[in-house]
């Protein structure tokens, strides 16, 4: 009985993936520096036809954990200067793809996930 329920559940999940994939097929373009650098889908997706979002481990395999990057001076919307390193803050080393979106516009999680209004361009 349990197995049947699990099967049904997994069927639903599968159907979901299939439709999601169909919708995102065109969206799955490689952009910017990754395109220049000649990356292919499988560099991140580790599968021939990407069906799910890759783990951030793939980012870290190429880029490292980014903890050696430097702080910079940014401004918030009120014009206050704030100095920080988006990759090394009080919040721990956050998932790369919270900020860097590979197939849509990147965003600063500090702004979207909290109340900040930093004016920072995220590549």
């Amino acid at each position: 009985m349990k197995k049947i329920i699990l099967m049904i559940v997994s069927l639903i999940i599968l159907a979901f993936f299939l439709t999601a994939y169909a919708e995102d097929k065109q969206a799955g373009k490689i952009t910017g520096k990754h395109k220049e650098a000649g990356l292919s889908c499988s560099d991140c997706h580790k599968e021939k036809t990407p069906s799910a979002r890759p783990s951030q481990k793939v980012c870290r395999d190429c880029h490292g954990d980014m903890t050696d990057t430097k702080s910079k001076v940014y401004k918030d919307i009120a014009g206050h200067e704030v100095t920080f390193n988006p990759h090394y803050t009080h919040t721990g080393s956050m998932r790369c793809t919270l900020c860097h979106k590979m197939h849509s516009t990147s965003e600063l999680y500090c702004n979207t996930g909290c109340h900040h209004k930093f004016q920072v361009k995220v590549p």
Partner: protein
Amino acid sequence: MKKIIVLIFMLTCLNNSYAAKVYNADVVVVGAGGSGNAAAVQAAQLGAKVIVLEKQAAAGGNANFCEGIFGADSKFQRSQNLPNVSKEDLFNKIMDFNHYKGDPLLVSAFVNQSADTIEWLQSLGVKIDGVFLEADSRTYTWHRFNGLCRAMTETLIKSYPKYGIQLMLETEAKDVIMKDGKAVGVKAFNVEDGDIVINAKAVIIGTGGFVSNAEMLKKYADFKGPITAIGAKNRTGDGIRMALAAGAKPEGLGTVQYHSPSPRFAGFAGIERRKTGFGFNQPVLWVNSFGKRFVNEYEVRNFSIAGNAAVRQKNGLVIKLLDSAVIDQYEKEGLDFVGGVNPRVPFTNLLRDIEADVQAGNVVKANTIEDLAKQLNKKFGTEIDPKILQATVDQTNHAYDKNFDDLFFKPRKVLHSFRTPPYYAIATYPAALGTVGGIRVDENCQAVDNDFHPIPGLFVVGADAGGMYGDTYDIIVAGETIGFAVNSGRLAAKHAVATYVK
């Protein structure tokens, strides 16, 4: 054919999802907030291999918001020559406040370790500006962090690699794994890896209480209506639920750290927020649904006490009123109550912001007391008889003229008249910074079962633990919540390593 492929695919999916990834540690800490981070670093310093699980994408919990930490008889207090801050003074003060609804062994362990904890934080690189009086009713116990608590969190988190601590963000702990009556690990869910298992010799739970869990609030809090949570999101009581399921005994579950009643429209941390909220959160004139005063409004500086007074009122509804003279005074001289260690400076543009909120429908404006009552009744469902409100206003004016409030004895320095129209009023409701009770622990912060025996391997710290407070957060001793979080984390870590790891 197609169906078979799908079936095979599904079965592989099933197999994969069943092989939960397994991690091994000496100590697993649940929650990377004020208590969890301290527990992790302390345990690792003592030689344990530590894994920290954090549900949110970002670490820090409420320790991203606080400012200063409790200390008793610290070097700072000594060098500043501060009165009434010996361990004896503060132990007695805390126990008096909770009238032995708290646990004296736990309170003693907390007070006795607190000065050492400040030096411990310094040894890790945390900077402290000194001890401040956070409001004039408090004790000189508030050791303010340079860069506030966020800087403390940052320092602890950045020391993780040095101590080999593994922090797993977006990882929600689900259950304590119990074996033969011992806590031996945690089941969790990671956003990328799915179900995972962490085997450990000890489990330290510090998930920050349940102030975002409406169902638990309704069940345990004395106020049964909605309570606005101020601070970190998603404090859903996971740790308390997990510990209860593991057989721990509850304690102090109903102790809500109420804040001064707050407007619902503004939220709290919004940077673009208008000055209206602060402007009204002043000791001028507060009335309940019936137009009566119910508190010495100067208790605004003791937020848990102001909160207690508010939640006794019908619907928890508190109307805060300002007249035009006091707004003018605040604009020129500054607010009566500033909070924190902020200087008292002219609170300019208050009227402009209040008028903007009148336009936005958040603030009621009237030229007569009668119209004020009428508008409030219509807008906020109060039942104010204009005559009663007039009598309240008369009492306020009388107190101001006589320089003596014979109803609630509000201090002279914050007496105001209420005579200059237009009058402004705002509706405020119960709000809370958190909950500060949950699981009964012993003086090592080890959870005890319903027979009062410690549960092997299971520790509960910070806002998930009971025993520090009675029914009310003792606001008069400033810095006690983050103080208890950090100190309880250390107490648990020391005992966990000594007993279950070594």
